[in-house]
């Protein structure tokens, strides 16, 4: 065992570092620095830049156009991307449906969908939760009935992140109710959002943004070739995807970056105030959070290493999700506390390019700290709530 990187790994790190620090589109870097929200077009340009560099399939096997990186390389990639304050790669295509398609899809589907996912030509969203089916996902009611060579889909999906931008949605739908277990009779269907009968209605979240949606299906005709794998086996595929999602939501690199930034901020005076480094209470909690994060970083590395040796992420990914989201939220709380009163002004309009920095309320992006804190309460709810993760660990890891 070694803690240090090999020469090859160091060279790789330098390569990734210089890409993220020097080769991203300048306006996107500027927006990130100023806390300006990225629109669809910005996000796509960012992901295409990664594609052009050959790294879009950072998590994919070589045969499907992926990098085939080692666990350490993936770790370096995520760390460098976060440390450069680069945007986050939207996971629905590259992190979620892509792996499902290359694992369970047929040749035609791989050929048709994978290249556009890699190249970010198509924006995907996720159709899992329903108004009546959250934690109890297997109770989902969206029906897909076979009529000739099409499924006719009816139902509603909810909490659909960035569904307003999406070209395609991957859905868990019920194709049969005549089953012994509710997990049977669920199928994994790919649906073109432009199909007649698909409508998207916004849900505004706690901090006031339009990030999530309800997606309604009214007699939507979906060609049978858009069924992934076998009919009725969608639950199995969906579970694999959720495990990828959970492993991905730990967000260790991002949390690490935010903690480092907060430590640097604590060392200096903000708005002329006494630096927070003099506040023992604050610094002790910052340090305790750093310790927990270091532990999680190594838990994630161990998981990545296991995946690299050929194992799909198992129920252990629930632990990553649990602890990862708790730490994201703990860091959000520290940021809010650091901002004091300046966490409270609600001024999202000042985070646009060309807004004079000196006219901003608060220093830097202080007033966004509470918005992020509020928004990220979602982290312990999405991807299977943290309560569900504990059920999974209790059942599948502890055998209870």
């Amino acid at each position, binding site marked *: 065992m070694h803690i240090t990187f090999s020469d090859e790994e160091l060279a790789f790190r330098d390569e990734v570092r210089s890409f993220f620090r020097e080769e991203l589109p300048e306006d996107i870097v500027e927006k990130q620095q100023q806390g300006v929200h990225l629109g669809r077009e910005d996000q796509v340009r960012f992901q295409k830049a990664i594609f052009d560099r050959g790294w879009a399939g950072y998590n994919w096997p070589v045969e499907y156009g992926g990098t085939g990186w080692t666990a350490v390389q993936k770790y370096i990639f995520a760390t460098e991307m976060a440390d450069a304050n680069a945007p986050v790669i939207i996971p629905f295509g590259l992190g979620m449906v892509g792996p499902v398609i290359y694992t369970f899809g047929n040749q035609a589907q791989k050929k048709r969908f994978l290249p556009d996912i890699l190249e970010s030509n198509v924006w995907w969203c996720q159709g899992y939760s329903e108004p009546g089916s959250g934690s109890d996902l297997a109770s989902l009611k969206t029906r897909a009935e076979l009529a000739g060579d099409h499924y006719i889909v009816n139902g509603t999906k909810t909490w659909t992140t960035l569904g307003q931008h999406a070209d395609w949605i991957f859905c868990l739908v019920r194709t049969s109710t005549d089953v012994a277990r509710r997990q049977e009779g669920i199928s994994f269907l790919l649906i073109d959002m432009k199909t007649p009968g698909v409508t998207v209605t916004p849900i505004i*979240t706690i901090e006031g943004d339009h990030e999530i949606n309800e997606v309604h299906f009214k007699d939507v005709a979906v060609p049978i070739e858009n069924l992934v794998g076998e009919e009725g086996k969608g639950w199995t595929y969906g579970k694999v995807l959720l495990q990828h999602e959970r492993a991905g939501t730990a967000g260790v690199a991002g949390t690490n970056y935010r903690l480092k930034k907060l430590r640097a901020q604590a060392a200096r005076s903000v708005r002329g105030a006494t630096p927070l480094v003099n506040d023992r209470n604050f610094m002790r909690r910052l340090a305790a959070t750093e310790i927990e994060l270091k532990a999680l970083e190594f838990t994630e590395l161990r998981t990545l290493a296991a995946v690299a040796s050929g194992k799909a992420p198992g129920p252990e990914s629930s632990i990553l999700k649990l602890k990862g989201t708790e730490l994201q939220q703990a860091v959000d709380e520290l940021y809010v506390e650091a901002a004091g009163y300046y966490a409270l002004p609600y001024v999202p309009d000042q985070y646009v390019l060309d807004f004079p920095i000196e006219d901003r309320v608060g220093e830097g992006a202080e007033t966004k700290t509470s918005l992020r804190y509020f928004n990220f309460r979602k982290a312990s709810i999405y991807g299977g709530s943290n309560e569900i993760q504990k059920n999974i660990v209790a059942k599948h890891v502890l055998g209870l």
Partner: protein
Amino acid sequence: MDFSFNEVQMMLTDSVEKFISNDYDFESRQKYAASELGYNAEVWRTFAELGWTAVPFSEADGGFDGGPVEMMVMLQQFGRGLIVEPYLANVILAGGILRRAASEPQKLKLLQPLIAGELQAALAYVEPQSRYDLANVETTAEADGDAWLINGHKGFVLNGGHAGLLIVPARTSGESVSPDGITLFAVGGMADGVSRKSYPTVDGQQAAEIKLNNVRVEKNAVLGDVDNGFATLAAVIDEATLAVCAEAVGIMQILTDKTVEYTKNRVQFGVPIGSFQALQHRMVDMLTACEQSYSLLIWASMANADGTDEAKKSISALKYQIGTAGKKVGQEAVQLHGGMGVSWDVDIAHYFKRLTAIGQMFGTADWHLDKLAV
């Protein structure tokens, strides 16, 4: 020792409770908060007509002589109703200063219209660098003949954008963090040299950044004694701290009630999620947090009403409790509501945001714990 409420206190509770259930539903509240003014002027007039704006003032000033206990019962209800009208800014903060420090002519000119609901007022007790230290005042007032010239930046002034009256603590002598040498000034909101940038806050209130550039006020603008404003300011902030804690307790109680109700009705896995032991225990913890908080609220309110030795200490103890238990209850209410808890259209999110804001005001839990850990 007597834990029962007197007739006036029960009447106040009833009257606020009735107003909220009849005239102040969540949809109205959202509409008022989103309006240009940030609250409803008609509702504010009603507050004045019902006498609520007069509660803490002496009978001589046209009030009801209400103390911490009367404030507690009202503010708890305001919390439950998630009221956005600027009661704290006008009555407790600005009114608290005027009640203690204003001369009779000043009261006639400023306090009477405030009580009548005709004058909007604000207390500018925060500066960008001050965090929670009330003595950290860099805004200066220099004598200029018979007048004063005020210069500085006041931050997060609640109700400051609309207020006709700004009460401005400014340094007339001493070092920038010394309690000595702070003077309280009454400044017109529209006075020359006052520039204001108004904004809504995350919890549906209104605040402003206020810059004072050679603002000239006459000597009769001084509230109380020159150089000796700190004690008044500190007493008012203590009272305001008690008030927001009472509001927080009201919010924590309603969040707990609503969460229990939700989990009784939300069915997953074929049963109400409230039937799961893991969630039941967490709601028991929420209830316990509410009860403990209410107990400290009662203690602090009575200690301050009766002026016991523990009055000051009780406020820090209470604010610490509200900071920690309030965060816990707010986060749990959101979590147990799942996606609904982070939806703008559901009241849970807005109660949670108000609790968060209260946690950030007048000193965080840690800040108050430090005061007691000596």
